[in-house]
């Protein structure tokens, strides 16, 4: 039996990761990738052994047990159910007949083509597996049916499969898959299989019950943080509060005196206390007196970072992402020009399950238990830290209590391995929530400048988007991202908005912040679509047009975009009157291969407080493999995005993160959540991504709704509610103003103030 055959990896620094195939999150690569291990059947460590193992995904044992080994991990997004559905559809089994397990780390077999590595992220899972997993199911079914036909000595064409049983139609003879497993294993693997016509789908398109939830209602499932192995101790850790700082002196006296503290372990930039349980480890950590060597960032503040970014945006030569038409000429000819700039904050992921990892470093091998979006990267980190070859690093992947991009990086596995290396027993490292918030790898801050020229009809004759920010991809590439090369993620959502924009320029100035950064739910589009869709609304306003009407005029050649726009407008009752102080905002985009229009209805109190009333989302995600899951992802993704747009922003002062837990990194709660309605545009296109799509819609729909409700255009996130006060004098917490006065005051206030960064210029009539 061969050992895991991942390509050898070498981790050179915290920034460097995944060389070889490299984790190339290029959404533009859609369809260009390799097929994951189709027809390969070499068993690997942690594999499921069965009589019939036609490929990397399907195991049918003689006792009838059917197991699917799924290439993508489950973190709540419904991947396990979706991928199992694809296989089951073609294999002709019911979802309730199968067991699903996570794939072990194996780059060869379980690479996600769209990501170029074994990873789950970027809303790629269903897009990447749509064909390969159905083909795997069809091939296996073909082999099972052939085995049955051979046994009965009848033509294959007379046999058919259903619910795990092959039937010889003329005679009604039946054989279950289990009984055929041995024989099927001896059948040749078909080189080409015919997939079902979508009209014959039995499972795809049905809202099947999820496969991962039964054990989630009674505490039975095991997340990474729940793993318990014999003789395990628990550690908690404090890394230098200043980014990039190092550990100085540590006085252990008081910590050693805490009963149950076992060991105190020093790392280059952190110190960990190991105890019999988490509580004692935490108490021990609190009892340490630590001196930090704060290093170069000791004075760093958010304002410094933003100022540097703004200067770069203005002074650095950008890298062109897209340029079509005569930009300069069109600008000159414009009847009106509009300009605005937007600022987006650093964001923490804050998944409900704090960062954790169990590691046991033995004399010649290392075993890891955790939940990760990147199992091979986790393996690579542990190999690098322990010095063991990859095949001596055993990774057990578990369910994930929320990823959102945080678990697309496995740097903490390196830390956990470095701790475990110093002791003989297995250690479970758990970060406190404070550590989790303050030592996340953040979604970076952005500063974007947009301008457009409008024609006589008010529509944009030219569109210019200068994006400025760090290269997230650069944090994944050994040696960093090449300076002169476009990071597609940086302009994803900006380069190809779903509008008829004949003259367009989108460029990118790269300015990496001084801390490691990573993706956050919605990746490039969460940032860019906020900017594009806010600006589109500003253009509509400048043109004196209704925002939906304006977008309608710009999507004449964008049928899928137009489809969701119309549906959302209709279902939301767009244009119907709302009470004073209320407003509707729309956002439209085409991220992750799906099209989505969202209308958010809000009200803003005179004191500036926002109530989210109702969200109406129309989606065209191609074939919805599991419509209920699509809806759940849209609901959840929208809440996630609204929570961030309303409340979230990581800020730095003296090199330290100022937020620490949910009291100051605030999360939207159930009593703040809007009603959400989801409508599908029926489509036969291949499935688009859905896990992040609605997160992208949230921010711009909110900002546009705020404008509709108050006349105030907020161009930075999170929303500054102080700017939304319309009761002026700040006299009372409960306004005594008659409801009609609020919009009136808002209009007056708006008339008085020039927007801070938005500038409209009427061209002089020649």
């Amino acid at each position, binding site marked *: 039996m061969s050992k895991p055959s991942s390509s050898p990896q070498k981790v050179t620094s915290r920034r460097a990761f995944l060389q070889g195939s490299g984790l190339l999150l290029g959404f533009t690569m859609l369809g260009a990738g390799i097929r994951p291990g189709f027809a390969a059947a070499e068993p690997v460590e942690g594999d499921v052994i069965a009589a019939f193992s036609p490929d990397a995904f399907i195991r049918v044992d003689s006792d009838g047990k059917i197991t699917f080994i799924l290439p993508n991990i489950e973190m*709540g997004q419904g991947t396990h159910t979706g991928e199992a559905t694809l296989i089951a559809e073609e294999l002709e089994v019911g979802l309730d007949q199968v067991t699903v397990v996570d794939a072990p780390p194996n780059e060869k077999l379980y690479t996600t083509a769209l990501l170029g590595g074994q990873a789950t992220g970027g809303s790629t899972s269903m897009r990447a597996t749509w064909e390969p997993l159905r083909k795997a199911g069809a091939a296996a079914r073909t082999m099972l049916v052939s085995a049955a036909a051979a046994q009965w000595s009848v033509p294959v064409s007379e046999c058919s499969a259903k619910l795990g049983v092959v039937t010889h139609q003329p005679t009604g003879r039946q054989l279950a898959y289990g009984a055929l497993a041995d024989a099927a294993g001896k059948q040749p693997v078909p080189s080409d299989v015919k997939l079902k016509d979508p009209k014959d789908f039995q499972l795809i398109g049905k809202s099947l019950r999820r496969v991962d939830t039964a054990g989630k*209602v009674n505490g039975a499932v095991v997340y990474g*943080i729940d793993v318990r192995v014999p003789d395990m101790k628990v550690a908690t850790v404090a890394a230098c509060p200043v980014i990039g700082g190092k550990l100085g002196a540590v006085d252990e006296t008081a910590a050693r005196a805490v009963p149950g503290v076992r060991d105190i372990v020093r790392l280059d930039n952190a110190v960990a206390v190991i105890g019999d*349980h988490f509580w004692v480890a935490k108490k021990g950590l609190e009892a340490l007196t630590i001196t930090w060597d704060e290093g170069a960032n000791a004075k760093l503040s958010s304002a410094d970072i933003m100022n540097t970014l703004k200067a770069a945006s203005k002074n650095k030569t950008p890298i062109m992402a897209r340029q079509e038409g005569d930009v300069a000429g069109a600008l000159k000819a414009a009847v009106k020009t509009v300009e605005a700039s937007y600022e987006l904050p650093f964001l923490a992921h804050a998944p*409900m399950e704090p960062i954790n990892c169990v590691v046991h470093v033995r004399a010649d091998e290392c075993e890891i238990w955790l939940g990760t979006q990147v199992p091979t990267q986790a393996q690579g980190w542990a190999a690098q830290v322990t010095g063991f070859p990859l095949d001596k690093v055993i990774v057990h992947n578990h369910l994930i209590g929320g990823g959102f991009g945080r678990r697309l990086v496995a740097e903490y596995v390196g830390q956990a391995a470095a701790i475990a290396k110093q002791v003989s027993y297995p250690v479970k490292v758990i970060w406190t929530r404070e550590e989790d918030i303050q030592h996340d790898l953040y979604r970076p801050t952005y500063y974007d400048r947009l301008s457009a020229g409008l024609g006589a009809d008010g529509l944009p004759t030219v569109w210019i988007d200068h994006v400025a920010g760090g290269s997230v991809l650069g944090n994944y590439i050994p040696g960093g991202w090449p300076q002169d090369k476009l990071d597609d993620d940086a302009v994803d959502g900006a380069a190809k908005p779903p509008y008829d924009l004949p003259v367009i320029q989108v460029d990118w100035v790269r300015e990496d912040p001084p801390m490691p950064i990573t993706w956050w739910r919605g990746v490039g589009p969460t940032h860019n679509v906020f900017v594009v869709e806010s600006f589109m609304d500003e253009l509509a306003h400048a043109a004196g047009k209704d925002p939906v009407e304006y977008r309608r005029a710009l999507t004449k050649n964008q049928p899928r975009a137009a489809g969701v726009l119309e549906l959302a407008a209709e279902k939301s009752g767009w244009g119907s009157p709302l009470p004073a102080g209320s407003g509707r905002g729309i956002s439209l985009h085409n991220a992750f291969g799906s099209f989505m229009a969202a209308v958010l209805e809000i009200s803003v109190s005179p004191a500036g407080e926002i109530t989210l009333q109702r969200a109406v989302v129309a989606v065209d995600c191609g074939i919805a493999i599991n419509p209920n899951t699509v809806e759940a992802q849209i609901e959840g993704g929208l809440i996630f995005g609204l929570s961030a747009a309303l409340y979230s922003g990581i800020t730095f002062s003296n090199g330290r993160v100022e937020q620490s837990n949910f009291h100051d990194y605030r*999360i939207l709660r159930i009593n703040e959540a809007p009603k959400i309605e989801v409508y599908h545009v029926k489509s036969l296109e291949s499935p688009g991504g859905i896990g992040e799509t609605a997160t992208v819609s949230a921010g711009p729909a909110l900002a546009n709704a705020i404008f509709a409700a108050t006349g105030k255009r907020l161009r930075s996130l999170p929303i500054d509610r102080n700017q939304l006060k319309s009761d002026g004098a700040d006299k009372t917490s409960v306004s005594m103003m008659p409801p009609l006065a609020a919009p009136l005051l808002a209009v007056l206030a708006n008339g008085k103030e020039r927007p801070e960064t938005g500038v409209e210029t009427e061209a002089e009539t020649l």
Partner: protein
Amino acid sequence: MIALNVNGEDRSVDVPDDMPLLWVLRDVIGLTGTKFGCGIAQCGACTVQLDGQPVRSCVLPVASVGSRHVTTVEAIGTTQSGKKVQQAWLDLEVIQCGYCQSGQIMSASALLERNPDPSDSDIDAAMSGNICRCGTYARIRAAIKQAAKA
């Protein structure tokens, strides 16, 4: 030694008085269904019931549990309301990552236990202390109502 009754079973644990019940359950007794999310009573992931009432176990010193019966998500299915809540959760596909759901289920079943027909504002009062990062709020609301009817 501290005596506890957890899920109907008497136990005694040798831990410091000030250790939060959460860690006694997870790290000493081995009931890992109760989750750690914040440690400061802001998220509700650690919710268990004491004599049927929901409490945040991350800030509850084990010594103050006393003779009250601790019920965790592992045993909530043995109560009437707990069972209904679990079923409604599955029927409406409330759960995403599931990490917050132990706490949600504990809060929701305690609510139904004292209020068999909760209104929206009752649900707000009982459930707003439970954060769900996956954003399953709409379904939680619907599932509580369904469980109430069941």
